[in-house]
């Protein structure tokens, strides 16, 4: 290769290396104070600030969803299987909201330890499968008495 081109190539490689290090360090620093949601154990231990807009996240506890028959009000427990926090929300829940499903809620913790959400988002994973496969998996795991590997539920629409 021509020496001038070699020199230019070295400059380009140095530019890329320098940039990667700079961006790597910046994102590493951001990682330390990124806005993670509080999990139920942190909230029940009193680590979450009261009456400040925060995010809370976890699994919707099985059998805890209570719907008001007249309004859009919903109450449910969010758990990380060691503690749970009651959440109340008025509004339309995302389609994927279900018991046993992961959610992230945005709102404020009141002084009684209840989380009043103004937004509830559902989280889904990267696994896709036809309903029949999910049904077969559920049957197989319930026959063996093991917990489900994924939150398989037949689609209702």
């Amino acid at each position, binding site marked *: 290769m021509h020496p001038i*081109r070699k020199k230019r190539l070295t400059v380009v490689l140095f530019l890329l290396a320098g940039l990667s290090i700079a961006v790597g360090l910046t994102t590493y620093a951001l990682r330390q104070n990124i806005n993670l949601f509080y999990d139920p154990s942190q909230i029940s231990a009193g680590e979450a600030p009261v009456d400040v807009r925060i995010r809370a996240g976890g699994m919707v506890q099985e059998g805890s969803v209570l719907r008001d028959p007249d309004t859009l009000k919903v109450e449910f427990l969010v758990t990380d299987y060691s503690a749970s926090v009651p959440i109340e929300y008025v509004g339309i829940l995302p389609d994927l909201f279900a018991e046993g499903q992961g959610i992230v809620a945005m709102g404020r913790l009141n002084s009684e330890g209840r989380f009043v959400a103004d937004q509830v988002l559902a989280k889904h994973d*990267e696994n896709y499968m*036809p*309903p029949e496969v999910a049904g077969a998996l559920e049957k197989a795991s319930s026959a063996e008495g093991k917990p489900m590997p994924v939150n398989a539920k037949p689609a209702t629409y």
Partner: protein
Amino acid sequence: MWQFFHKLGSPKWFFGISARFMPWLLAGGILLLMAGVVWGLAFAPKDYLQGNSYRIIFIHVPTAFMAQSVYIMMASAAVVTLVWRMKLADVFVKAVAPVGLVLTFLALFTGAVWGKPTWGTWWIWDARLTSMLILLFLYGGVIALDRAINDEKSAARAVAVLVLVGVVNIPIIKYSVDWWNTLHQPATFKLTEKPSMPAEMWVPLLLSVLGLYLIFGWLACVRMQTEILCREQRTRWVKEFVMKGRV
């Protein structure tokens, strides 16, 4: 090998050779994309959890994949511009930047449309969505910078540096879902493992990705040809081409 590489840099040579395989790119692209999208939207099984709304994946994943792929190609061309000062590399960057912009916009748009029914929101400032938005701005910046500088050679170098600076965003987009806690789910396709969806879902997805790749190739050729004609308008071969209709 170097001789071939230098020949590749000749706009006239490229103009002639690209015309030969462009019809194949277009025909193959339309065929694969149609097959993938129709199979995915109409015949693939629905998802156990999301039902039919997951089907937008057959548009969302190809556009998002191509948006990043086009940027990596642009960055490779930018290295060629900076090191070898090859005109054709710069022609490529300028020709495909608007295509990349449109693909990124489509990926963001289909993502928002998918996010509303599944997550419950059009937009959230999580790492994946934000880094993809930065990619959109990078494409816009590349186009704007190119238009802002009149001199062809200085524009080429400035654009190449900007494209290279932006390439660090690509691994951030790719790994954002693994490095940080995001609402966006991790990748379904991994190089080392089997995809976490059955074949009757990932085959149509793969077909539409390949189809979009071919259509992108065709579009890049068309736009590069136009750019070459504009730049070389004073040369004899372009004048002859305009008069006779062939090179």
